[in-house]
């Protein structure tokens, strides 16, 4: 049994508040426009995308050796390297490091991998107090919600929502919606956290095989505040985060923030090579289905993703259905090609949550063929019997109609008659095409009827 609503069901709930949907749509489009402005300032933008894609292709075809090279260099730098086959093992490793130090509290910076592995729930069941330190992450954590966007975790919330949440949990003044005031409250609350936690966990944006160092990018500086004050720094990464050489960062750091938020670079791009003197640093390298995706020729390109979120900001479906409707740690177009690999049954609906317009592919900084992969996933899922029953029946019906000209003709006549004379039969909530839009006015005759009457005359005229 599925625990979650399907994407379309969840989107229908989100769509009930029309004003809020419009606001969500416009907010994300604003970010997408900032991305365009930033990209257009770089004359060689397209060349950069091509280079990034080529570097990532090289990574995919040599990833075994790069990982060994990375491991060996990281160890030489004094970092402890762990390998986790799946989410469960990843969580166990993190917990075992905490246990070894007898620590019950952790400060975390944003990591979509730990969301994917449901680390917070796991640790909290073991009695460990986890505090997310990215402002957006902290907001959704206090509300007991997952992030709705990989770069902008609280993009679905209005400042009034944040104000209420902070009033309840941090004791801020009721009804004070000023972002500056609210951010200051979070700053003070989290500063105390940073100063008292002995273990800090961060994600990894890039891991460099050549040097054994990792790079973490943030605007707030929260990853650094955590890692530089704690005795133990744990960094968790999917194995696809590896890049060959340090100099390749020049390409990815030019692309990442511009694609994500339209900034020329994140405020902090921190390179962690060695632990501080006398302190510990651990890196957990996670598989959790990635090896399987690597083996799927049609879908392995999804492992090139650098998690900028540009595909979400531009996606007309994401913008109008909200991140939570994707019931997956990574939402939007890229999430919809990653999720079926994790669990085909649970996520069979996601590749259908797309218009296949291709906008995601056009903005992807590493040139992942996202909309092609969405289309290919649909073929795979239908073949493997994951299409919803209603859709299967409808498709079979459609096939019969299209294969029989007489039936097609009759169906058209009935359709036009109904739309004209009994419109209530189509203009109702049972008809999915009526949602969010008006039905078109029916024509008086079909094209076939028109062509029978006028075709000869029309052709003759054209041939004159």
């Amino acid at each position, binding site marked *: 049994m599925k625990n979650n609503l399907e994407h379309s069901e969840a989107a229908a709930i989100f769509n009930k508040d029309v004003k809020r949907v419009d606001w969500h749509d416009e907010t994300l489009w604003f970010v997408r426009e900032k991305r365009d402005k930033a990209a257009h300032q770089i004359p060689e933008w397209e060349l950069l995308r091509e280079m990034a894609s080529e570097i990532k292709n090289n990574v995919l075809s040599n990833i*075994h050796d790069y990982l060994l090279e990375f491991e060996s260099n990281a160890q030489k730098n004094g970092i402890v390297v762990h390998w986790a086959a799946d989410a469960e093992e990843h969580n166990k490793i993190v917990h075992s490091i905490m246990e070894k130090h007898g620590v019950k509290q952790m400060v975390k910076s944003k990591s979509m991998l730990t969301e994917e592995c449901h680390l917070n729930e796991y640790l909290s069941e073991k009695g460990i107090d986890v505090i997310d330190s990215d402002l957006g992450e902290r907001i959704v954590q206090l509300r007991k919600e997952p992030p709705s966007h990989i770069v902008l975790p609280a993009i679905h919330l209005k400042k009034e929502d944040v104000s209420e949440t902070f009033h309840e949990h941090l004791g801020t003044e009721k009804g004070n919606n000023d972002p500056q005031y609210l951010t200051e409250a979070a700053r003070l609350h989290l500063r105390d956290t940073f100063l008292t936690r002995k273990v800090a966990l961060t994600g990894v944006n890039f891991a460099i095989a050549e040097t054994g160092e990792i790079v973490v990018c943030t605007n707030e500086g929260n990853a650094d505040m955590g890692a530089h004050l704690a005795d133990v720094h744990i960094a968790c990464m999917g194995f696809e985060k590896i890049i060959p050489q340090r100099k390749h960062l020049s390409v990815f750091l030019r692309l990442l923030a511009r694609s994500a938020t339209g900034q020329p670079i994140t405020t902090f791009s921190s390179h962690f090579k060695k632990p501080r003197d006398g302190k510990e640093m651990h890196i957990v390298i996670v598989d959790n289905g990635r090896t399987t995706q690597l083996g799927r020729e049609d879908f392995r390109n999804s492992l090139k993703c650098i998690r900028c979120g540009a595909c979400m900001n531009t996606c007309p479906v994401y913008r109008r259905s909200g991140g939570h409707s994707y019931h997956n740690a990574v939402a939007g177009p890229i999430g919809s090609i990653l999720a079926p690999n994790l669990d085909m049954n649970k996520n069979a609906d996601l590749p259908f949550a797309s218009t296949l317009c291709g906008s995601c592919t056009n903005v992807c900084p590493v040139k992942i063929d996202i909309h092609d992969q969405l289309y290919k996933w649909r073929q795979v899922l239908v073949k493997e019997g994951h299409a919803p029953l209603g859709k299967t029946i409808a498709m079979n019906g459609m096939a019969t109609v299209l294969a029989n000209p007489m039936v097609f003709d009759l169906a058209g006549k009935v359709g036009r008659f109904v739309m004209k004379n009994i419109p209530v039969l189509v203009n109702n909530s049972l008809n999915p095409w009526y949602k969010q839009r008006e039905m078109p006015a029916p024509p008086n005759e079909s094209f076939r009827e028109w062509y029978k009457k006028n075709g000869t005359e029309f052709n003759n005229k054209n041939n004159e």
Partner: protein
Amino acid sequence: MSSRTIILEKIKQNQPTATSVLPNLDILGLEAFDVLEKYKTVLKGIGGDFLEVKDYDAVIDFVKKNYALDKRIITTLPELSEIADTDWFNDEPHTLENVELTLIKAHFGVAENSALWVTDALLGQRVTAFITQYLAIVVHKKDIVATMHQGYDRIGDQEYGFGTFIAGPSKTADIEQSLVLGAHGARGLIVFIMD
């Protein structure tokens, strides 16, 4: 078998058989623009500020005029010992929580995004650039390069335990996309661009 062995075996089996070669990056970052002007414009655009100065005396004058000298000011630069502590390198990093202003130097800056490259050798303590309320960084004019490609050429195989590019003050836009400076790290960044 360990997870490590299983993962690596599976990767070996599943990675593409045809090897893709690494592209040549030398053709990137060759666009021509006024490096200093670009640096200044971008820095302003991301919430930072700058002052062109001749020498460290000018920095000292500026700090005296613009910052509360009765609050804790620290530096890694011996030239600034008149206005800032220089004997905190071995302190417990948590004790830096009351620092109002930190003055450090950057190895170099990058014009296209106004980022400044600093490593632990210049930071004294890794956390200094983050825990301070305000941050000031000195960079020499001749050390500002055009793009990240020249930046990583400069880094080359430089040895460090920790290094970071800092571009502007700490910021967030997580509340309805309203830009707020001073999320967790420095609330303000001033760059002293020195001859």
